[in-house]
């Protein structure tokens, strides 16, 4: 019996691929935005004067960095309902992925914040800038330049991590691959298509990051990821 490789076997299932890809994109983009916000919060929290806030922030980071994403997904989807809060597949996926990615974002942003020299704060304050103005005009552009590459890595890791949400019945690309592959018994073709889809999505996010960086911080070198050659 031949295993005849034939991409045409994928065609009857292609109309399920578009909603699946939209689900992947939606959950990934939402996670990126939310985890950046949480990351900023906890990164500042880790430098806080108050010991209690520092402890909470560090505990959050250490817990969610050291637990696998699949375990967090299972916990939020299967275990949380037993205390009365039942979230849908999509909401559970969003919560779990945000908590998980937020821990990594906290560390990335904290590294960026630490890289800003103390003199910058003094200089800005001597100019009479408020805390918010310092953050917006002096600190964040420098932070962004430092964290640019790790941020890209984290975004791609979020997109690829979204494939795990198929375990809690989110209808995304990996779920489509497994279901269609099992229905047609042509796993090779379907995994190939899924790999291409993830590749395209990751690269699209990468290019978007580069363009947004260039638009936000045109004067900074290295923000585009290419940098100037010395």
């Amino acid at each position: 019996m031949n295993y005849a490789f034939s991409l045409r076997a994928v065609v009857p299932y292609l109309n399920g691929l578009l909603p699946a890809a939209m689900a992947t994109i939606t959950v990934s983009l939402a996670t990126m935005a939310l985890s950046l916000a949480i990351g900023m919060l906890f990164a500042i929290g880790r430098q806080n004067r108050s010991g209690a806030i520092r402890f909470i922030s560090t505990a959050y980071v250490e817990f969610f960095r050291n637990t696998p994403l699949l375990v967090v997904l299972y916990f939020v989807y299967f275990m949380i309902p037993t205390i009365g809060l039942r979230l849908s597949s999509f909401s559970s996926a969003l919560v779990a992925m945000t908590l998980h990615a937020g821990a990594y974002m906290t560390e990335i942003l904290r590294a960026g914040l630490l890289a800003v020299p103390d003199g910058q704060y003094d200089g800005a304050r001597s100019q009479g800038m408020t805390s918010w103005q310092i953050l917006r005009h002096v600190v964040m552009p420098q932070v962004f330049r430092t964290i640019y590459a790790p941020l890209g890595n984290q975004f791609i890791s979020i997109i690829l991590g979204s494939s795990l949400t198929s375990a809690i019945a989110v209808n995304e690309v990996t779920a489509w691959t497994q279901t269609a592959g099992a229905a047609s018994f042509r796993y090779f073709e379907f995994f190939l298509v899924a790999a291409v889809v993830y590749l395209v999505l990751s690269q699209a996010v990468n290019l978007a990051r580069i363009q947004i960086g260039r638009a936000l911080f045109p004067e900074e070198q290295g923000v585009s990821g290419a940098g100037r050659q010395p």
Partner: protein
Amino acid sequence: MRSIMTKAARAACVAAILLLGGAVSTPLQAGEVLQGVISNGTLRVAVMGSLPPFTNLTPSGELEGYDIDIAKQLAAALGAEPQFIIVDSAGRVAALQTHKVDVTISDFTRNVQRSLTIAFSDPYTVVPARAVVKTDSPLKKIEELNDPKYKVSMNRGGNADPNFAAKFPKAVRNLYNTNADCLNALLSGQVDAMAEDALYDAQEIAKHPGQLRMLEGDYARQEVAIGLPAGDAELLRVINLWLEQFNASGDNKVLFKKWFGSEPPPIQAAY
């Protein structure tokens, strides 16, 4: 530098071609699988690791179960030693397609879709496919599930999905990778019902006393059979002969009673 790059690129291309070439299997000669079993003295059987009481992996690493005993008796009749290879739900078909195993004996339901790529023997047991709910659920009959407000969990890669979709298309189907996840979804309230074959359902009801019950009615009549690679009519002929005698002599009834604790249902449909 450039010459090393082209050499490396060429080596990579050759490796890729060899790998892809190896991945395409050759067509079966008539009787090839059967001859292989006889000459090697080994019957390679694909089983799922954890589907009691069909197959179960004991803590000591031994496999035991209804399907395991059937495989041992079949191998003995062919004059071979059984060799068990553990696969997952979808791997039952893939292993046969790629000739990694000679037969699959693993609560394997036969349907036309699967038989396009592999062959099935006659059935050795018949199970109705039913739905399980929590005891405090308001549902009574399986037909009530045909409503978009009800969510039903089932295995991805099994035949519950197409069967349930055909009979009750309006229900929302949540697919999970394992039966354990499907059951967890039901117990945690994420879904309203779980669809699986009646024997598995009965097991789970016994394991969770007072928590689960089955809905009246079924959504499919599942014929459980032995899977084998398509194209070997000799192996199919021999296995079917063995199965007929296995059923007629009462050996099947003895094994079924041993593992399921009840009389086996009639295999022949009345029509």
